[in-house]
């Protein structure tokens, strides 16, 4: 028996860039959307859920592939998207145009922007299959939303949709990893562009603008977060904890000085997938340099990089099937470095996904699910030395049976220079 040829959604188009091609080569996004939605519908069937009522964009993006206007704002949860299991149909509220709407969502399932709650109710009442639902999963409930749900599906039990969607999204196909790689390439380009201009006298705000400009040069992409360009502190600040290496992210007004260690983090969404890259530039006369064993980065930076590699490298090495959040944190702790304020590991997909390991939280993630083959994670480490500064860098990895596969490709991380 010969194995069946890979489904189009599983073929990975390397070295093609992001262009739409006349021969259809490249990522088959229709197949990718269909495969994601199929996984969601299967999970709904397993859990006996009749309909998903979604208001959070990462979930909506995963389920529908809707290319929507991006806002960096968390408003009260509104029921924007409904997926009905019996029909497999998607309904999108507040979508006045079919621009950005995948063709499998018919015009009849779109309703326009509205500011009137009565219109929202009316539109949702028109969703076939919602009124009779017995089990509905939602990803949030606005204070007024409880009334809304009881009005729309009076007989339904309402569950949390997030664990279901998190579980579906946990493992990424090769095509999804390809999208993440493309996003990483964009972020790497922007991090390098910041480095080229990290000279004495440069302004952190201006470099942040440069990072944003470098990213959008790649076309219609979304900044997943504001770029971070910030000289790391050489002493603890008033807000620093004695147990945590100090790091503020907001740009300061102080111009960069020679020898500053400048934490740089760029995060971008390409077709919804996150590329997150952090490196620390040492400010030099010809631009920033990353420590790579050569002398020009200074011995303090070289020593910090070595410490970062020991700690973050141990975490990356621990990113294997079966590892739990505790295993990953233990790997960091084993290096003897104090835990950073930022999470040491986050899942990478449509933005940040579980597990969120470490970080300045009052409780643990609460998700102790072991790592599986196909998960993608961002390992982000930060180490600090009084009088010298700090070193922030990240590596995005894929969990495989052969061990962690590094997806980030930039000096100053775990990749040894040639």
């Amino acid at each position, binding site marked *: 028996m010969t194995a069946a040829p890979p489904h189009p959604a599983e073929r990975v188009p390397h070295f093609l860039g992001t262009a739409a091609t006349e021969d259809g080569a490249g990522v088959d996004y229709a197949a990718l959307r269909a495969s994601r939605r199929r996984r969601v519908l299967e999970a709904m069937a397993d859990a006996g859920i009749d309909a998903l009522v979604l208001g959070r*964009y*990462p979930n909506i993006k995963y389920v529908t592939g809707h290319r929507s206007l991006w806002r960096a704002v968390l408003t009260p949860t509104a029921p924007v998207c409904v997926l009905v299991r019996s029909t497999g149909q998607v309904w999108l509220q507040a979508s006045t145009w079919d621009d950005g709407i995948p063709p499998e969502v018919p015009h009849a399932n779109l309703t326009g922007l509205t500011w009137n709650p009565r219109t929202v109710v009316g539109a949702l009442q028109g969703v076939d299959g919602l009124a009779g639902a017995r089990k509905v999963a939602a990803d949030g409930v606005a*204070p*007024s939303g409880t009334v809304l749900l009881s009005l729309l599906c009076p007989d339904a039990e309402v569950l*949390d949709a997030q664990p279901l969607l998190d579980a579906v999204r946990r493992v990424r196909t090769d095509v999804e990893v390809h999208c993440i790689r493309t996003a990483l390439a964009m972020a790497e380009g922007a991090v390098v562009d910041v480095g080229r201009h990290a000279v004495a006298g440069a302004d952190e705000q201006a470099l942040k603008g440069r990072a944003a400009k470098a990213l959008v040069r790649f*076309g219609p*992409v979304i900044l997943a977060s504001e770029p971070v360009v910030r000289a790391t502190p050489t002493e603890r600040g008033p*807000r620093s904890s004695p147990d945590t290496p100090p790091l503020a992210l*907001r740009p300061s007004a102080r111009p960069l000085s020679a020898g500053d260690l400048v934490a740089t983090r760029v995060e971008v969404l390409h077709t919804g997938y996150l590329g997150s890259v952090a490196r620390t530039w040492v400010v030099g006369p010809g631009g920033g340099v990353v420590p790579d064993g050569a002398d020009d980065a200074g011995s303090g930076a070289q020593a910090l990089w070595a410490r970062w590699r020991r700690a973050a490298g141990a975490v990356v090495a621990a990113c294997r099937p079966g590892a739990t959040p505790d295993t990953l944190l233990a790997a960091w702790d084993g290096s003897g470095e104090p835990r950073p304020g930022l999470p040491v590991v986050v899942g990478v997909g449509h933005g940040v996904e579980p597990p969120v390991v470490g970080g300045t939280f009052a409780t643990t993630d*609460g998700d102790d699910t072991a790592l599986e083959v196909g998960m993608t994670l961002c390992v982000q480490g930060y180490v600090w030395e009084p009088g010298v500064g700090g070193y922030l860098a990240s590596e995005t990895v894929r969990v495989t049976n052969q061990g962690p596969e590094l997806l980030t490709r930039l000096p100053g991380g775990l990749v040894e220079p040639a």
Partner: protein
Amino acid sequence: MVAAGPGSLDLARMRHQRMAKLQANMAERGLDALVLLTSGGVLYATGAWTPLADTGQTLRLRPVAMVVAGDPCPHLFTPYVEDAPDDLPADHLHRALRPDRATGAEELGHQLKDVFGGTPSVVGVDDYTVPMWEVLPPLLAPAELTNATALLTAARLHKTADEQECMRRSWALCEEAHRAVEEALRPGLRTSDLSAIFLGRLFEAGATGNFLDPVFQAMPERLDEGPWSTNGDVPFALVTNDHILRRGDVVWTDCVTSYEGYASDVGRTWVVGEPTRRQRELFARWKEVTDAVLGRVRPGATGVELTSAAVEANGGTAPWLDHYFLAHTLGLEGGEPQRIGSDLGPEFDERFTLEPGMALVIEPVTWEDGHTGYRCEELVLVTDDGYEKVSAYPNRPFE
């Protein structure tokens, strides 16, 4: 750096005065505590800077605020402890919560009891994760959980002098970034290139954040050249693409940026090249409409007075987009719920009365199929006897 305007600004005073307003609104409504999850609610209560990000990030790494009646300082639970405001007492600054998890929602309830010193009787909440919705009512029983949205809307509607200064600066920075884009506008650039120029200059000039994917949309000349729509009106604002600009393209902009959380909302109309005679006429009508509306802006004027003036100046039809509105109030993060001429209908507009301290964005649109149209946004602050016009972007080359 851009000259940020002559006004003085005291951020600590601004935070203090906002908290006083929250407290007054809580007292009026009989609330003992607030639990705030929306980014605007947290910003208003705490003024805490966080990196503005996609909700795919902020849902997992989010600040939460709690306000206790009688306590002049908010409690901030944040993953970005070292970026918290200097004047927030250390015992009001806490590790981040995870309200999206069952354990995190429980912890949120326990923290509320801790900072309150017991179980409050009436708690205002501005959004729930599903775990919060399941966990909080039994955990906080017999507390009454109420909707904090109206309270926040009321507190945010009138701007203090410091808030007004933030809005002037925010608008000036967004206009500065617009100037950089307009100077670069030429055939052969992609509309996404305009976004790149915009963001580069915006941060360089000193804006503290960006709330919206910057819109630089090349407009179809006719509606039937645009995408299908539910209402048949002008398709705006669409998602950024990489349309390559050509001579004669009309570009509408819509950019919402931040200065200390306060939004600009600059929208302009540009032409790659020179406007046609008909396009100048569309501008002239837009100007007549805008002047007619501005002529009515003063304390006591109702929303209906503004819409009526606009309709009259436009010869009897509504000169704004069917899916939007003629005007809206502005504050933290962008547009506020007071929208004049929206599908809430004239009943809302009749009830809505302008008062000193409100910030109002007026965004009339004129359109003639085959010639595109003219749309710009103007910001005014309502004063004791009229208004102060904040927006100052020129309308050349249409004038």
